[in-house]
């Protein structure tokens, strides 16, 4: 992916839907329809900040049938490296942004006999679009939505109106919890489960489903890690023959891009595997933060996902 393929959009609507989440509507600057997508897709939003460019993945939450606007929900991250703060504090109606074409890493299984959708907090966003794909499809589904309290439940009115009794809400503030064990132990054959939310919730759903005997092919999850901050380090790009400094609050991928070297990516969240890069030399440790490499591959230490992972070392040489 490179910037030539981005689409210029204008912000045409902003709504504060919970104390932490803002809902943005985007329309093509050139007018007309935006590219077709399916429920579960995300886009990369390119933000021109004061001193750097932010590129963050956000799920499309609007209806795939309605292509005159794209809708995204952005949670203000406490320890943001800038992207979510930029969206919350700097973007106003009329602001222009660049976006990359939608990509779906969290699509619905087309021949499932039932869908169980589980969302925690902002994790509701890709699921909103999946629900749009399910409406009128005749395949049974149910939604389990867990939030801190009613005031933090984004898009609750929309969900109540459209989903009726297929919607089950759980408020932490009232001590309500999704009974994952019962939920996953009682699903008919041919059910698929989809989960998006905090890491703890996703891991818990995966572990519980497996304990109930679910095979991998019926378990779907999406979790974009924000690249964590870390120590500064230096990387040498062997093919480009340049050294790049990676500051604590910038990701390896962002630093490489800032130096003018392109790395392919789709998600920038450690999920898709596109940014996979070979490590040629290393005199310390890799800090893997992705969900793509297997534990065995991580232990080998000969490759890295630069969108979210870092290194703790004096010298790192990459095959770029």
């Amino acid at each position, binding site marked *: 992916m490179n910037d030539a393929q981005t689409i210029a959009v204008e912000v045409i609507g902003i709504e504060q839907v919970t104390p932490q989440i803002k809902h943005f509507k985007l329309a093509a600057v050139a007018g007309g329809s935006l590219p077709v997508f399916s429920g579960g897709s995300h886009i990369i939003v390119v933000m021109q900040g004061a001193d750097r460019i932010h590129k963050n993945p956000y799920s499309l939450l609007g209806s795939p049938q309605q292509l005159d606007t794209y809708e995204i929900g952005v949670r203000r991250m406490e320890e943001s490296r800038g992207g979510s703060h930029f969206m919350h504090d700097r973007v106003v109606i009329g602001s222009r942004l660049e976006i990359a074409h939608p990509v779906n890493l969290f699509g619905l299984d087309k021949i499932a006999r039932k869908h169980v959708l589980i969302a925690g907090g902002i994790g509701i966003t890709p699921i909103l679009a999946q629900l749009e794909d399910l409406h009128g499809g005749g395949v049974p589904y149910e939604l389990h939505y867990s939030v801190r309290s009613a005031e933090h439940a984004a898009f609750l009115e929309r969900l109540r109106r459209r989903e009726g009794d297929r919607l089950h809400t759980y408020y932490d503030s009232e001590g309500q919890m999704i009974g994952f064990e019962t939920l996953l132990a009682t*699903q008919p054959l041919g059910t698929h489960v989809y989960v998006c939310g905090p890491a703890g919730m996703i891991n818990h759903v995966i572990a519980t489903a497996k304990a109930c*005997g679910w095979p991998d092919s*019926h378990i779907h999850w999406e979790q974009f890690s924000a690249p964590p901050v870390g120590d500064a380090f230096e990387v040498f790009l062997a093919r480009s023959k340049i050294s790049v400094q990676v500051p604590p609050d910038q990701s390896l991928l962002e630093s490489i891009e800032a130096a003018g070297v392109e790395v392919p990516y789709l998600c920038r969240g450690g999920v898709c595997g596109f940014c996979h890069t070979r490590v040629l030399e290393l005199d310390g440790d890799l800090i893997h933060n992705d969900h793509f490499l297997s534990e065995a591959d991580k232990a080998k230490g000969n490759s890295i996902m630069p969108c979210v992972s870092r290194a703790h070392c004096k010298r790192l040489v990459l095959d770029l």
Partner: protein
Amino acid sequence: MLVTGIKSKPVYAPLQADTRGRYHLMLGMGVGAAPLLRVIFEMQSAAARVLKNTRVLYVPDGGSATPEIERFRAAAVGNAQTFPGTPALLEEFRSTLARSLMGTRLYVAGTESFIGLAMKIALEFNLNKDEIRAEECGTSARRVYCIHCRATTENVRTNIASCVGCGRWLLVRDHYSRRLAAYMGVMVDAEAPGELPPLKEMFL
């Protein structure tokens, strides 16, 4: 020759227990009892709980009760049932799947035709590769689908066979359809009526 070089012929590996599953449903016919018992013994060493959730549906050779069913029961599988033939077994299989929960693993041991028919039903219930294990044993006689009249001829052991539907002589191809659970049969003497290749036993 039309018969060779087509890669859709299914290939199945020896059965193995998958104790990550919570329920285990086994289908077998004839000599398929042996691989199923092998899996059951494998499970016995893994966890006792597993066998309580194991169910066997079985068609004995000749259709009457046999020592195999006693061996299933002796191996602590409470729920083993025999059927007089494949259609009755498949009917029960289908209604079992309709009541089954996620966490079920399917094991099938029998002829390629038997496996094919079971797979076709499993597919309707969205069972994926990681939920199914199958081992081919017994005869490799084929189910042959006539592309002309759409009738299916069972138990074909020869390179060419007369279609039960239209009587045409069909050449049995290696082209297998999972949806139809059958090999494609194409009229063999279309160009020169009556000119048939020699009949050969192929699928024994």
